[in-house]
């Protein structure tokens, strides 16, 4: 089981693309990859989870921790590409109220080079 995390910058927004399954084994990898980006004052981060097939509370924990860290530096984290399953996880934990999340369908941002 693998987790892949890539980072690229576009229009001063830091984009993380996460691919794979996030669980107890891979969550530490995710945390480490996120921490490779130095959190600067007012940083804007987008985390694309459209290719995450599985996630549980270990993943939520990482995102909550990261969210707090970035927020303390006056930055913003947006989580995008949530499948209905992943969206539900944020909904039932109440995290949708505090974090900026966006589902698959909404697709407002023009960043995805979706191949249909």
């Amino acid at each position, binding site marked *: 089981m693998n987790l892949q995390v890539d980072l690229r910058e576009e229009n001063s927004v830091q984009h993380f693309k996460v691919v794979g399954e996030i669980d107890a084994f891979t969550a530490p990898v995710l945390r480490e990859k996120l921490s490779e980006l130095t959190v600067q004052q007012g940083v804007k981060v987008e985390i694309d989870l459209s290719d995450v097939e599985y996630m549980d509370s270990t993943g939520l924990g990482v995102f909550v921790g990261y969210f707090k860290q970035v927020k303390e530096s006056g930055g913003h984290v947006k989580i995008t590409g949530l499948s209905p399953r992943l969206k539900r996880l944020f909904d*039932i934990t109440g995290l949708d109220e505090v974090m900026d999340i966006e589902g698959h369908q909404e697709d407002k941002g023009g960043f995805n080079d979706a191949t249909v």
Partner: protein
Amino acid sequence: MMQPYDYVEIRVPAKAQYVGVARLTISGLASRLGFTYDDIEDMKIASSEAITNAVQHAYKDDEEGEVVVGCALYEDRMEIMVADHGQSFDFEETKKNVGPYHDHEEGMFLREGGLGLYLIETLMDEIKIHHDEGVTVFMTKYLGGEQVEKDVETVSS
């Protein structure tokens, strides 16, 4: 009266890399019973949470333990038991001893790591927890959602 069931037990080392292996096994068994995609995904998360808890306890105590996952497959439900102490359990005996889980007021909000039990409770139909020489989590998922009343006639195809 005791309903007949098939019982499958797997034991994995209390290490994070085996959580996914156990999760796949449970997914396969749930699929065998005919659970829907969403129910199977719920069960994958709930069982992973319980197994992750067990693995983290073992890690904290610096033990090289095993996690035992027992699955009972009934016609109308699946029961999953996760124990963080090595020895195999007597499924029926352990089931008698587990009590209801009350402690939901605990604030899970924005606290890293506190979400696991909350998710199990939300995603499964029933959950019981037993503390003895370790922690045993016992959870049930009914086919077709919540438990149907006994006198409701079940339609068989």
